[in-house]
């Protein structure tokens, strides 16, 4: 492995974070290596969303060190911008721009962040919209699409920026049950292509199928971290067993 690859991925070292007086992340140590697919699960309020939102500095950590592809998130604008150029993110509520067409949603950042020409940005956008199988919706607005379609657009919009790492923050939690499959399929394809992925989700089928590692968080701490078979067949911690018994019925 060359030096570049060794440095790539996300590295949390003794990371702590507080909201006011409440500590939401406690001394987190976690390394996500290049090409790895990590699923994070845990009860609500356990800090899992906060943890991944720290990786592109949507949230600031107060103690410890976070490095993304070797760049330390130290609060300087330059390092935050450098990290955000390499990390894409998909949100629970899609967060598409409601006033822009699907195509414009996919081109705005390409044009203003990367300085790509409109024609080239649109070509790229159509390429990714085809990959998530909704090129025919390109001229519509987000409000005219189903939730599953909107989330696939959000994935395409992120991919247009050619990220190295993709973060998913409960990408299927806001979807009607019958729309979950299409989004998970898109994510599975992405995983099979070798994208580095960190995914907060309760879709345990997806975790089994795709993840290299499953992490269980509770009260701001990583309680358990194991390969999927190990994690589901033989969880070591009582809290993990309790959680799994509640969500796998």
């Amino acid at each position: 492995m060359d030096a570049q690859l060794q440095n790539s991925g996300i590295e949390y070292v003794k990371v702590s974070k507080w909201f006011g007086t409440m500590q939401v992340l406690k001394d987190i140590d976690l390394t996500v290596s290049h090409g790895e697919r990590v699923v994070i699960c845990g009860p609500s309020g356990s800090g899992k969303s906060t943890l991944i939102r720290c990786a592109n500095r949507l949230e600031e950590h107060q103690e410890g060190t976070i490095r993304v592809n070797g760049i330390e998130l130290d609060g300087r604008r330059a390092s935050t911008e450098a990290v955000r150029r390499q990390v894409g993110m998909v949100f629970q509520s899609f967060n598409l721009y409601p006033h822009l067409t699907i195509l414009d949603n996919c081109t705005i950042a390409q044009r203003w962040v990367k300085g790509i020409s409109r024609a080239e940005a649109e070509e790229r956008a159509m390429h990714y919209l085809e990959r998530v199988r909704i090129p025919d919706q390109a001229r519509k607005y987000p409000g005219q699409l189903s939730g599953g379609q909107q989330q696939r657009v959000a994935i395409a919009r992120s991919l247009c920026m050619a990220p190295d790492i993709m973060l998913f923050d409960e990408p299927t939690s806001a979807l009607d049950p019958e729309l979950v499959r299409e989004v998970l399929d898109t994510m599975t394809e992405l995983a099979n292509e070798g994208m580095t992925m960190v995914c907060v989700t309760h879709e345990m089928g997806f975790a089994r199928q795709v993840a290299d590692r499953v992490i269980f968080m509770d009260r701001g701490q990583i309680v358990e971290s194991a390969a999927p078979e190990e994690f589901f067949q033989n969880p070591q911690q009582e809290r993990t067993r309790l959680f799994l018994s509640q969500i796998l019925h």
Partner: protein
Amino acid sequence: MIDWAYIIDALPALFRGLGTTIMVSVLAVAFSLLIGLAGCILRLSNIPMAGRIVAAYVEFVRGTPFLVQVFFIFYGLPDLGLTLSIFWSGVLALTIWASVFHIESFRAGFTSVGRNMSDASASLGLKSWQHGLFVIIPIALRSALPSTLNTVVGTIKNSAYLQAIGLAELTYVAIGKVASDFRTVEMFAAICLIYLVIVLGVSALGHALEKRLDEPYRQR
């Protein structure tokens, strides 16, 4: 009976007054929108004290009668060393009055945009000015538009108060005519109708813009 011939005779003078009304209103609307936008940005900014100063400005202007503000600017400011012509006193008074309502409408619009959009922009790498210009303003404009339109219409109608400092706008001309000819019903009915036509025209423009900004949100 209404004397139509009298009204028609008076029209050229009324239209000259209307010209002044329109000029003073257009300038005040333009300036107040700019100040409204700037004030709203300061109000919501992290700059120390800026938010409070803007909030105090809004409370002060909103809490005092418009006619008193007009008199203060025209009769009071010269004593403080700032003498403006009647016309520019009028523009200034209307601008200040309208700006506080624009600040509040824009603030409602801006805060309706919410965290999700800034998360999306940040994760995509857009800078905050790009997020403001391409995301916040277009989305906020849509929700702020109805109340902004109210203020614009109010600005036009409030220009009538400026007759009190002798600005020869529409109402001033009409009052002058009434004083010499005593055709009260004719004159006031005529200028009501003229104001109404202007305001309806502005409303129609506003509703067209509203319809256009609503386009992305319509189901089809």
